[in-house]
């Protein structure tokens, strides 16, 4: 059986980990198979969790989150016959598949929508743990905003410097309220479980929010502008489907192969104008075609559109 380990924040974070869970569930429903799953409780458990699943014969073992990178590098050597897949991190071992996403591309699109929806000309970004990966979201978003409105102001906050930042809705809510006070009327939350608090506070304060990873539009219908989809579910689904024959190596999922995108459904239809759709789809086309390159923060640890 395949197995999946969710990172801190838990499988019901309504965001990153939940996307992974949904992918696994989809696989189970389609194939009738079963899978093992495990949620991390603390940093120090990662290794035991990984070993235990590999030891129990699970294959492949999929894990969500860059934080597994270091221990996977160690454990993968001890279980050469087991296949592993890691999301958001590159681990160069012969039995590991690494899946990374072009989050900056999806973020660019929702950034454009944010700028067009904003009446104040100020938009917000709330990132989870302050690491290059999340800055990559923020940077793409900022470029998208500036593409629509070069004078727009972008307020940026992160919820912490440790993995606890993924699961702190109180902080998310307080930061959202703070950003509103600074004029932001659309806030993009790229913060895992913390985003729940951001979306809640935005809804309470009567401003718009943008979800992340999973489609979070349903959480506050009519109050979430859109969600930046990161198809972790697809990645997990694919890995499970490949099973023990999982192909090692690096997979990059971007706009071009539907790895990222934005969510449109009944919940946010009234908020998204045709004008927005036209602009965003045009940009998406250009990116896919390679005519437009969104800056990847992790390529040079710098962002031309906004200062972190």
């Amino acid at each position, binding site marked *: 059986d395949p197995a999946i380990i969710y990172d801190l924040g838990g499988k*019901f974070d309504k965001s990153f980990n939940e996307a992974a869970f949904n992918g696994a569930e989809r696989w189970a429903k389609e194939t009738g198979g079963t899978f093992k799953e495990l949620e991390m409780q603390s940093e120090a458990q990662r290794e035991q969790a990984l070993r235990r699943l590999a030891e129990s014969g699970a294959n492949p073992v999929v894990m969500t989150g860059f934080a597994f990178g270091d221990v996977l590098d160690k454990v993968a050597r001890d279980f050469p016959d087991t296949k592993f897949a890691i999301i958001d991190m590159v681990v160069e071992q012969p039995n590991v598949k690494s899946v990374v996403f072009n989050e900056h591309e999806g973020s660019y699109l929702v950034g454009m929508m944010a700028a067009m929806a904003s009446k104040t000309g100020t938009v917000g970004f709330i990132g989870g743990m302050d690491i290059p990966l999340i800055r990559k979201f923020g940077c793409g978003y900022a470029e998208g905003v500036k593409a629509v409105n070069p004078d727009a102001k972008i307020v940026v906050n992160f919820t912490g410097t440790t993995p606890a930042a993924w699961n702190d809705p109180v902080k998310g*809510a*307080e930061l959202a309220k*703070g950003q509103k*006070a600074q004029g932001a009327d659309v806030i993009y939350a790229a913060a895992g479980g913390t985003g729940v608090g951001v979306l*809640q506070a935005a809804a*309470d304060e009567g401003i718009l929010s943008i979800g992340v990873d999973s489609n979070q539009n349903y*959480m506050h219908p009519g109050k979430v502008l859109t969600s930046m989809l990161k198809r972790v579910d697809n990645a997990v689904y694919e890995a499970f489907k490949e099973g023990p024959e999982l192909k090692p190596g690096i997979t990059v999922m971007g706009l071009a192969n539907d790895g990222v995108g934005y969510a449109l459904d009944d919940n946010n239809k009234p908020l998204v104008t045709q004008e927005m759709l036209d602009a965003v789809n045009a940009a998406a086309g250009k990116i896919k075609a390679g005519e437009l390159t969104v800056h990847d923060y992790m390529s040079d640890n710098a962002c031309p559109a906004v200062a972190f």
Partner: protein
Amino acid sequence: MDYATLLQLLDSTLRLGTPLIFACIAGLYSERSGIFDIGLEGKMLVAAMCSGTFAFYSGSAWIGLMAGIAGSLVFALIHGVTSITFRGNQLISGVALNFVASGITVLTAQSLFGQGGRTPPLTGAARFNEITLPFVEALRPVPVIGPLYAEVISGHSILVYAAFAVVALTWWVLFRTRYGLRLRAVGENPAAVDTAGVSVKGLRFSAVLITGVLCGFAGAYMATALQAGFGKEMTAGRGYIALAALIFAKWRPWPALWACLLFGFFQALALRPDIVEAVVRVKVPVPALDALPYILTVLVLAGFVGKAIPPRAGGEPYVKER
């Protein structure tokens, strides 16, 4: 830092300070009666879980609040039986109950909702929503006061205002009523109360139960006002910060209010390291801000900032002797 930013910090301070105030005053009753309680954290957590759960099922924040109080009371009662009836070690009992609470809340919420120990999000009347005080719009143009009234004082849930009322009420009860006199006496010298013909156990149980009720408010506020539902370990050490505030305030109600607001302000600052950096012009690590309440409390305990003398009979089970 401009005025608007300050207001925003103060607004945040009130929101974050409220659970501390409830929990701190809760601890005040118990400790004033001579029963140490390091189980505030656990009671808050249980209350948050119960209130989140019942608010979800009933759709009413008020029913959630009642359930939160009930859950917290159960734990308070166990602490009472352990430390009053069986004269157990109060500190150990508190530690133990915190663990039980930390585990049982997740177990319960997980078995009820299957969402990783979370309750589903609460909406509408299942939460204590923000209320706008009268004359906000009328006063808003007034310089300084207007924005302060509109941004900071108005626009909180009813429980925030209740917290302030609880402080005032506690002061009045403690220093103006018969119950308060006896409560203070039993924490100082239970034998004096006993020989005066008042039941030491009865007084102490009543105090411990009041602690339970107020922790119930604190937890319910967390789950149904500050946030929209219960989440694993959502109190995040607030019970201990409240305890620290209680010591910082030397077991007195009004100073407790200020201590909680101060610590709430630190929490608000820790959310906004950018503001801190702008004001002090050096990068202050967030962990330093997180640790500030604890460091201050240690300094108080050390007697460097005035000496904190706990109620004299605190922590000691009462055994009759002549």
